[in-house]
């Protein structure tokens, strides 16, 4: 190993899998070896059994579906509102001066702390879950998009003006396409965060979803189910991240060329 020396793609796969193997091995050693009480941590086999039980008999697929829909719903709502605001802030400095201080303040408000208020306002239905994710995502997206659009190369903007572009032409045909790959990356990042908000939202006042299943399992001290739920979240996150990445690469071929 030397600093910054690249690895082959085969090595990357092998090393990446090796960590998972090591992780499960340690887990097995701790549980099967009796070093940790069954009450606190289920062993890997129990976890798989509980997972099968959940999927086959307790309708866990429905919970997964509910959670995915909430994440996507809340996230899409946030993106649809935040991206245009962010673009306007990045393009027009007075708009930025008007909104930036508030958005900077608002993005530090923890989404989970809004849950009691949101239950009061929106009940414990779907709207409340969507709003938690919305609040968690919207300010982050606005701010990051504004910074990205504001950092558009000045010389490209000037070139567009000397080619006869007007202000709306510069926004639509320079600022937007130039910032688009970064915006897509921002959305990918925030989608990952949305996953943590949804679980917190489902832990309180919910009757479906992965988070709800985890709270139920806690009442029954079923650590196998809890761990299975957590792993499912991780897997879905990994898959959505991969799909998002592939989609971005397909959308912006000029970035890779």
């Amino acid at each position, binding site marked *: 190993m030397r600093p910054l020396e690249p690895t082959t793609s085969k090595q990357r796969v092998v090393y990446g899998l090796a960590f998972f193997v090591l992780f499960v091995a340690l887990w097995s050693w701790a549980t099967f070896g009796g070093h940790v009480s069954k009450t606190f941590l289920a062993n890997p086999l129990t976890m798989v059994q509980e997972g099968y039980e959940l999927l086959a008999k307790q309708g866990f697929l429905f919970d997964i579906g509910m959670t995915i829909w909430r994440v996507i719903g809340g996230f899409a709502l946030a993106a649809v509102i935040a991206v245009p605001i962010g673009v306007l802030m990045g393009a027009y400095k007075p708009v930025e001066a008007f909104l930036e201080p508030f958005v900077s303040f608002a993005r530090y408000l923890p989404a989970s702390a809004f849950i009691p208020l949101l239950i009061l306002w929106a009940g414990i239905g779907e709207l409340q879950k969507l709003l938690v994710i919305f609040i968690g995502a919207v300010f982050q997206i606005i701010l990051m998009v504004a910074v990205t659009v504001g950092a558009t190369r000045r010389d490209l903007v*000037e070139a567009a003006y*000397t*080619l006869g572009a*007007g202000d709306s032409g510069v926004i639509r045909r320079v600022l937007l396409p*130039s910032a688009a790959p970064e915006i897509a990356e921002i959305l990918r990042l925030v989608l990952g965060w949305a996953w943590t908000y949804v679980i917190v939202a489902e832990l309180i006042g919910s009757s479906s979803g992965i988070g709800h299943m985890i709270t139920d399992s806690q009442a029954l001290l079923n650590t196998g189910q809890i761990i299975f739920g957590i792993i499912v979240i991780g897997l879905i996150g990994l898959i959505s991240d991969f799909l998002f990445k592939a989609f971005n690469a397909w959308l912006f*071929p000029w970035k890779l060329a």
Partner: protein
Amino acid sequence: MTALRIDQVSRTFPARAGHAPTRALEPTTLDVGDNDFVTILGPSGCGKSTLLRIIAGLDRPTSGRVTLDGREVTGPGADRGMVFQSYTLFPWLTVRENIAFGLRERGVPQQGRHDIADAFIRRVGLSGFEHHWPKQLSGGMQQRTAIARALANDPKILLLDEPFGALDNQTRALMQEMLLGIWERDQKTVLFVTHDIEEAIFLGSRVIVMSARPGRVKAEIAVELPHPRSYKIKTTPEFVALKERLVEEIRTEALKVAEQA
């Protein structure tokens, strides 16, 4: 008839914390006639780029005014095409789409855009690269595309701000010949900023020498070499004599800059 008139144009950059205001350009007067090829030669920091940016409308003069065909310049516009030293092709557009950018802004329909763009692609020798992304092109090819992009708009005047400054010597020589060939064929009013003496003589019908900061016009030298010019002209006695004279002019200015620093 005078195409471009620069009348007592000066530029002072306002003071920043702890620094006095910077006088970048002394009041400068210059006329550029129809189909003239004028090169502006000066050491770095002599305000020659500032002057070009004011003509392009990307910067405002502190005093004086610029008029093009009698109309005052108040902002950038398609009648003044610009080629920058930095590579400013839009990375998300192909070579053809880049060249057609200005046409698109003007609402030229797609077929017309393609026809004009393809004609300029041939003119700058980029046939076969229509669908390449800028990232896939060498520096010289990117600047050829940038020149084609500015010309496709059919501007009244072409402004070039050290467009070959970042290229290696061999590529630069080829680009000079290409640009001169286009000018000899199509006749265009061109204002070309450079710090390369040979480039200034080879391309220009007139060389404007600018002094070190604050910039002002120090000398104006007519280049009476016949057209069409080939690279061989660079070794003729007339060319060498002009070069010697300009070397002296520029050297005094460069020394001033070195003393100030």
